[in-house]
């Protein structure tokens, strides 16, 4: 519901450029060989879309559905199940901070505050005015012994403390 209230595809007026063309299509085709059904390649196909687009629009879901012989509604049901697929555009740097109990007792909430401040993202889930940062809290990142783990894009950074945040953010400037 909330998703459909958001802009679905900002390029509604422009012609749609397919994700699966050229090299990306080849990548998808090699993925198809791994699964006995086309549907099996859905999660990896969605990863490819997100890699290419930064997020997965409704129009992209329609393309994935067509390529894999599924319906767009089915694809959307799957996309919305998995929290790592973005259903709307996010900042250039997407920051996920673990705040589940083991990290929480080690000060994860302070790390979140520090990140919001250093990036200028202001609030969780919002993108900073310069479009560079989106910070979200996530549930367990599976590195509880290295509290607080932070995932910036595909970089998994362990043992982040509030003091380390400013330098960390600088690295992505």
């Amino acid at each position, binding site marked *: 519901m909330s998703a459909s209230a958001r802009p679905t595809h900002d390029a509604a007026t422009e012609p749609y450029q397919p994700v699966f063309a050229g090299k990306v299509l080849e990548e998808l085709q090699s993925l198809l060989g791994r699964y*006995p059904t086309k549907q099996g390649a859905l*999660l990896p196909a969605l990863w490819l879309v997100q890699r290419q687009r930064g997020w997965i629009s409704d129009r992209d879901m329609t393309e994935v559905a067509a390529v894999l012989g599924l319906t767009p509604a089915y694809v959307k049901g799957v996309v919305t199940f998995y929290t790592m697929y973005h259903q709307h555009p996010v900042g250039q740097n997407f920051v996920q901070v673990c705040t*589940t109990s083991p990290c929480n007792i*080690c000060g994860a909430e302070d790390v979140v505050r520090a990140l919001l401040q250093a990036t200028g993202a202001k609030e969780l889930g919002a993108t900073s005015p310069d479009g560079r940062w989106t910070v979200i809290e996530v549930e367990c990142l*599976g590195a*509880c*012994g290295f509290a607080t783990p932070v995932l910036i894009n595909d*970089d998994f950074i362990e043992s982040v403390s509030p003091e380390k945040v400013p330098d960390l953010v600088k690295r992505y400037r």
Partner: protein
Amino acid sequence: MGYPHKPHAKETKVLSKYFGDPEARTYKGWVKRGGYEAWRQAQTLAPAAITDLVKESGLRGRGGAGFPTGLKWSFMPKDKKKPHYLCVNADESEPGTFKDREIMRWTPHALLEGTAIAMRAIQAEVAYVYIRGEFTEPYAIMAQALAEATAAGAFGDLKIHLHRGAGAYICGEETALMNSIEGKRGNPRIKPPFPAAFGVFGMPTTINNVETLAAVPPILTNGPAWYKKMSLSNPKSTGTKLFSVCGHVQKPGNYELTMGFPLKDLLFELCGGMRPGRTLKACIPGGSSVPILDRAETEACLLDYEGAVERGTMLGSGGVIVFDDSADMVYQIMRLARFYAHESCAQCTQCREGTAWTTKILERILAGQGKATDLDLLLDLSENMTGKTICVLSDSCAAPVVSGIKKFRGEFEDYIAGKRKPVLVA
């Protein structure tokens, strides 16, 4: 940072022997360290013989349930009529648990070798290693290792594929994981049918945890008797296990211990005890889904399947979360409930609605607006959420709530009575 720590004398390094040794990540390096010898041996054995060896070793599933691995393998059809699959559960997501990540980061070939052996034992030609989406680094290392081993022709005709998850705790549940591989929502399936009859893509499937499979090669090379002998307490719990320790200890990290090792010694000797001036308050020994232990129970608990049960909890995944006296148990239990509410797949009513309601009640208590009846309500709600759903996510949410109220009731009552300053805004 933090890990790999220096081996402690009381550890038994089998799985973690090469943690911290970057060369062990390479195919050549692994072979040099005796790797793929077990796989070579396995190829000379009949599938049933491999299964028998694993049965004899007493190896039990390290993902949480502790089901005997050899027995699980033996459920697969003997006369093969359809494709068989192996699923490798590398969707490590249980709060407090980070051992599989370490295995994949440092000894990816141990997992691949164990995978190949298991495939032979269950007559599978395809295996999917389901790695949670957030594990970017382990995925890259596994991909590299798989490419090297495949290039070296290590697995013959066997096909091993990596499958990346996309952010869903519940995909660690075996049937949800299979649905996820099939390109579906990660909904757990009703059982029966069980995976050995109707698993991924509807075919006979076995699913094993990363640590379980990594333990298989040393069992083959050293013999089941060697493995079985590693048992400090109950003979039904054999071998070594990685314990991930996190929270309020001086030295968090993964520690490999022989089954039956005292939890107290793990925390106070290997992990260096609490921070200065702090005392142990509580411990969740098997990942967030198992009941919380208070201090006395923690100090009396032996780390094996039976030892944990004896203290009213479970060994689970071996994710040990430690709370010192600074921890607000009400707040932490709320965080755990919120985790489960976030991760509920939305199928079963008790889970979908119950985890969210539980969280709301806990949040209200923390906001200073709890009612005297809230604790009974939480307990009754937890009872409704236990043993009644497709999978155990709902039970997992109830476990810390029930044990928390039982053991730390005073903290809840203080919030409700207004004796403690609210920490949340209503």
